[in-house]
Structures are given as C-alpha cells and as structure tokens.
C-alpha cells in the first residue's frame, strides 16, 4: 500500500493506506481524528465536512490520493480550544440534540462565513441546506450561524 504525506491541521502526518481510501476513513481510522462523522458515504448529508485549502468539502467522497499537498482542516484544528466564533455561537445557542451532525454543520458554517461575512437569511439557508440534522435542530443552527456572523464582523 502506498504511503501518503498529509498536511492536517498544520501538521505533517504520514499514512499508509490504499489509494482509493476516502479521506474520512483516513482521518477516523488511521489518524484518530473522529470529529468528521460518517453519515451517508455519498456526499449527501454533510456530517463529514472538512476544509480543503479553506473550502468546505465532503471527506467521504474525496480519496486520499486527491488531497496530497493540500491543507486539510478538521474540526479538531478549527481552533485551539473550541473558541472559533462559530463554535462559540453553537455553544451560546446550545444547538445540539444528539450532536452527531454538528461538527459537519460547524465546518460548513465556518467556511461559508469566511467568504460571506454579512450573509442574508437566504444565503445562510442556502449554505446550510446541504447538511442534514436528523434531530431537526435547524432553527438553532440558523440562529447560531447568524450569531457567528455577527461575532466575526466585530
């Protein structure tokens, strides 16, 4: 099996896996970074969302061979201690019910707000529409993104 050199959360990590292994399973099974969750495996639920060169992508649908040389950020590297404005907003609103989808929601929201610091209601809803919350905590997710946008604007 080939060895890959990955840049994850600012660190260089080496893994030996088959080339078709999705980044999600490299993170979860080989690097002990379990913040990105498995939900569907076909890029439709958003639970596995991470940042690749600052862009939100679905780690279940991107293979390790495609990410070499790119900067990978997972929820574990979004902030040192859970104090990214989006994480703080999530805490302030107390968004989660079961909590399983929330890291993916946070990664989608943080990438979105970086590019759209003053979003409209519809822009927030469009941006978050790809992430399923089976507990349907959508009203709180919306509110938290709005609060995070305000925090980031300050």
């Amino acid at each position: 099996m080939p060895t890959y050199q990955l840049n994850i959360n600012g660190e260089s990590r080496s893994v030996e896996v088959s080339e078709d292994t999705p980044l999600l399973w490299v993170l979860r099974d080989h690097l002990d970074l379990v913040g990105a969750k498995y939900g569907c495996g076909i890029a439709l639920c958003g639970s596995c969302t991470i940042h690749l060169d600052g862009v939100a992508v679905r780690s279940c649908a991107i293979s390790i061979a495609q990410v070499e040389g790119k900067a990978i950020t997972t929820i574990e590297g979004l902030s040192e201690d859970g104090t990214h404005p989006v994480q703080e907003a999530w805490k302030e609103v107390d968004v989660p019910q079961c909590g399983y989808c929330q890291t993916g929601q946070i990664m989608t929201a943080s990438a979105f707000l970086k590019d759209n610091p003053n979003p409209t209601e519809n822009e927030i809803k469009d941006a978050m529409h790809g992430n399923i919350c089976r507990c349907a905590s959508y009203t709180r997710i919306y509110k938290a993104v709005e609060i995070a946008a305000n925090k980031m604007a300050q």
Partner: protein
Amino acid sequence: MSTQNKSITFSRRSFMKTSSLAGGGLLIGFNLFNACKPNAKPPVNLAELDYNEFNAFIQIADNGAVTIFSPNPEIGQGVKTSMPMIIAEELDVAWKDVYVKQGVLDTNNYTRQVAGGSQSIRFGWDPLRETGATARQMLVNAAAARWGVDPSECSTNEGVISNAAGDKLGYGEVVNEAAALEIPEDVTLKDVKDYKIIGTDAANVDIDKIITGEPLFGLDYKAEGMVIASVMRPPAFGQKLETFDDAEAKAVDGVIDVLKFGDKIAVLAKDTWSAMKGKKALKAEWKSDSKLESTEDHDKLLLGLLDGNKFETLREDGNVKKAFSQADKVLERTYESPFLPHNCLEPMNFYANVTEEKIHLVGPIQTPEGTAKNIAKLLERDFEEVHLEMTRMGGGFGRRLYGDFAVEAAEISNLAKKPVKVVFSREDDMADGIYRPAIKYRIKAAVKDGEVTGYHLKEAAINSNMYGLIPNFFPAGAIENYQVDVAKYQSNITTGAWRAPYTNFLAFAEQSFFDELAEMMEVDKIKLRLDLLQKVKGTTDERIQYSPERMEKVIKTAVEKSGWGTKPEGVYQGFVNYYCHNSHVAEVADVVLENGNPVVKKITCVVDCGIVINPLGALNQIEGGVIDGVGHSMYGDFGFENGVPTATNFDRYRLIRMKEAPVVETHLIQNKLSPTGLGEPTLPPAGAAIANAFKAATGKRIYNQPFIKYPELLKGPEKEIIG
C-alpha cells in the same frame, strides 16, 4: 432549607424503594469518603478530580465538587443533562460544580435504563429527587452531629451546610461521617417555588466535546486489537443464504477474515473502508424461503383488512352500528401511511469483546439491559458476565431499542475470538431496518341533531397494532358510541417502534378527520373539539388519561398565541390538538401560497408537559419534534419491491433540510404538575397541522403520507382530492 412548608415528605419505605433504583451502593461508598477543606472550590477541571463514591448516582470530591451519574441512555433527548439536574436540585449543590458522567448498565443500582416512550423524566422524577434529598439529609445529619445540634437547625446552600451559630461545613468535609449514619426515616423534598436548578436553562453537558469533535459516539469508540466487521445480510426480506464465495473479498487489502454466521456473512478488516470494500467483493447467492413482498401487495392487503371483518376490538362504548343507522349524516375517510426507516445519522454499530472472563459491550443502545440479557442467553453465559457501556448516540428514534447490531457484534466476536465493532453502512442501515410499519386507518363518524353520536376507528397495520392506552386517547370518552378495532397482516419485513409509535400517523388521521367533520357539520373547528372535551370532564373511566382541562388550556392558548382566525389574507392556518406520551399539545400551522404552491412558514406549538426541568433543552426537543413531524409527513417515502427496500441512501430518501424547516414558536404551559416527556409528543400533531392548513390554502384535502405524493398539491387551488 426554607422548604419545610408545602413540601412533600417521603417515608423511609419510599426511600428503600428508591434505594434499589438509586442507591444500593450507599453503604459501599461510605469507607471511600474523605474529609476536605471547607468551601474549597477553586476553578478546576471537574472531570479530572478524584471523587469519593457516595452512592450509585453521586460522588463528592474533597473540594465539594460533585459527580452525578446519569443512568439512562442519551439519544439526543437531553436526559444526560436533565436527569442529573433533578438530583442536583435536591442535593442542593450549584449546577456549575456538577460534573455529569454516563452511568453504565447496572441492574443492581438502577432500574429502567431505557430511552423510550418519552418516559425517562416521568418515571425518574420521584426517585431522582429522593436520591438527591436523601443524600443531602445524610450530609446535614453528619454536620449536625459534629456540631452537637439538631439537624433541623441546619440549612444547606450550594454544597455548604450552616447552623444557627453561623458555623459552616462543606459537603466534602462530612461525607465520611455521613456515610456511617442510618439512612433517614423520611426526607423532605423542596417545594417548586424554591427550585434553583429545575426550571433554569442548562446547556447540553456534552456541548464542549460535541463542538470540538471529541470521541463521544459508538462509531468513535476504539479498543486495542479491535477489528471492524461489515456484515452482508439477505438483500430482500424473505431470503436466506444459499452459497457464497469469499475469495475476492479475502484478497482485498486490509481484510482479515470472512465468517458466516446464520444467514449472514461478516467481513473482518483492520479498518472500516477495507471492511466495506471487502463486503462489496463478496459474492453470495440467496434463495427465497417466503414470499417477497411489495408495497402494492401491502396496500391491497391492508385495504382488504379494513373492508373485512377480522378485527380485534380494543374499546367499545355504546353501539356504533345503531348510531350510524340513526345518523343524519355520516363521514367516512381512509388514511394511508408508508413504512419509514429511522435513519439515525449515526448508523447502527456496536463493539463487543467476548472472552472467557467476560463479555464487554460498548455502543449506542436504547435498551442496554434487554440487549445484554439477549446476548448472555445467546452465548449461554451468565448475565453477570456482561459489562455494557453506553455511548452517546447519534439519534435513536426507536431504532436502537432493538439490539440486533449488538447481538451481531457479540456473535462475531465470539466466533472470531477478537474484539469486534460491527459497523453498518448507510445502505445497511436503511435496508436492514426495523421499520415503522405501514398503517391504514378508516374513521367513520355519525352526526345526529348537530352532535357527534358515533365514532368508529379501524386500524390495519403490518405486523402489530396500537397498544396500551392509545385506543383511549381523545376522542375516547367524549362520544357515546365509540369503537376502536384493529387488524394486522403478518409480514416478513421487520417492523418496530418509530418515534411516537402509532400516534405518529394516528394523530394525522384523526385530526385531519376532525377538520373535515367540522366542515361537514358546519361548525367551528375549535368549538367542535372544545365541545367534545366538555363531555369528558369528570369522567371516572380510568383508561382515560388525558385531561380535558389541560387539553382545553393548550387549545385556548394555541388559539390566542397563533392569532387563529385573525390572520391577514394569504395566511392559511391548520389546527391540531393531541395527547400522547402523557403530554398535551396543540399546534397551529401557518401556510402561504408561493407561486400557487403551499409553503409551511411557521408552527405555533403549545405544550403542557408539567414542570419543565430544563427549558433550553425542552425547546430544542419541541422544535425538533415539530420539524421532524413536518419532514416525514411531507417527504417520508419508503416501500418495498419484491422484498427489497425502495431506497437505501439519501439520494432516494428525502429528509427535511434547512430551507424546508418552518419557524417554530413554542409556548409552555406553566404549572406545578409532575413532569412528563418531550422526546415524542410534539411530532404526531405536526402532519395534520400542515395538512389542515394546506386544505385551507388550496381547497385540497390530503389523506395519505407522504404529501409529496400529491403532485396536484403543487398546482395551486383548483380541484378537490377526495380519498
């Protein structure tokens, strides 16, 4: 404590009962207590302190910080936060000094470690309060003995005991002595007005771990030497394994072994991706051992049951036949629902390590005790050899009441002699489900002289029928001639509980029917409901557990808060009131037409669930339940073709998403009644609320779920759909 008046006193007998639930460990814990410095509560990481055991629920550290064990499984319903809040309230400690840990399965010290039926808080309310109050009283008695005063001269506040002379002792200082004392004959519980924790907002106790991606869920669990098992099961219901060829599967990098067990084949690999790839490379042939059923068959069979006469009668008042023969007007309607998969976002998974010494199980399970017992029985081991740890769960919705995945993990570990985690793919999760059964209802009402004189509800369901007190829900007791009949068809498709079993569709059927009944009677829709409730007041029928007074209050509050009947033109409303899982709910949906299409903008939800432990968590449950109810009514489309599910992933199974979620405005009825659950009761009414609003908006009435099967609905207000 200033709560001697008006508070409830529990006798020792009552405590001993509690003790078996809550604190058999009390005596065991005593010799572990250590004295501590008074009032020493520096800012520390509560998780890293050394704690002294007090009982199965409570540990107190030297500095007075408290660990409270939450006994019940956490599936997102919030009990890991709310149940410890109840203990902390009566123990009289500050919530910020409490660290919460998930309790393991422990049948000696806890009872009913189940997440289901919205019953954790309802059944936990008395025992959890008694546990906290008993521990508090023992700490007070110890301090009083040291001071040589009567315990009645002592008071507590946030973990500190004071006497009349102004002396103070921290809980941590007297735990040793408290442990040596008799369990009090009786304990006094606080009056509602003195609550400092119950009724205040508490954040999810796992919030920091959730937002930073720390391992919490079953799928995150790892153990030394653990292998992943991906299991191939029969592709259609009604099939058995004939032969299989594992040569290609075994050739996949990372695959360790392939094992047959029963009609299933497990591919064991060193990681999840290799296990999934190995399963794809497996070749198997299957044979049918019973009929391969399709949705078309089910529809015919269930409608046939409704037309037939093979019913079991669950409740019969008066004579419905006579009422119908004497009626001025009769309304009869049929309502149909599909099977539904649960689709917990964390797919089913479980860890098992079966060794000669013990069976170690870890994972997400709503029924730890039953599952541990099933596994012990299957492997012919003693129940005492099973150690089960519950992880936080990525949703439950009823699916994790069934421990099939945990049993598989134990079977495979037992065969492989290895620690194994079974992991379902999304496709496995949706295709190997224990589904909400397809159900059809036929409701018939008789009207004479402007009164509802007869009501006959028939249920035809796959595999199992409504149970318990459901046949006695509203409008039972309000109509003189009333009958509930049920019939079922035994299918080889596995079915089970799905969030708010039976009522999740029954509420839609009945509350849609009431709307149409009011239209036929030409009476106000709210008045019809209120008039019926009048007739239940003062009932002596013990099967009637809904309260007409509480129902009336949620209805009137919903009318007021939703602006019922006063909305500007273009806003169409639908009304529902419902009782299930011991809570009373009314919902009003606001729908507008956008390009001729009805769009749900807002749901006003009024809930009477008694005392609300944690309003922050309660609102989340309520909003989630409402939106989940809207989502599955609108989009939940699932069935079978020759035994094979019609969808196995989110490409063909639609779940509600952000842009479709309405605003939910919640109003909680304030009272001092014992709390009831919130995980389920707001879901069932949502479907009828929007269907009734769609009718108001478009003139079209919906009889079947999901609503997306009504393409006409999207064409604007012209033609009538009659079911």
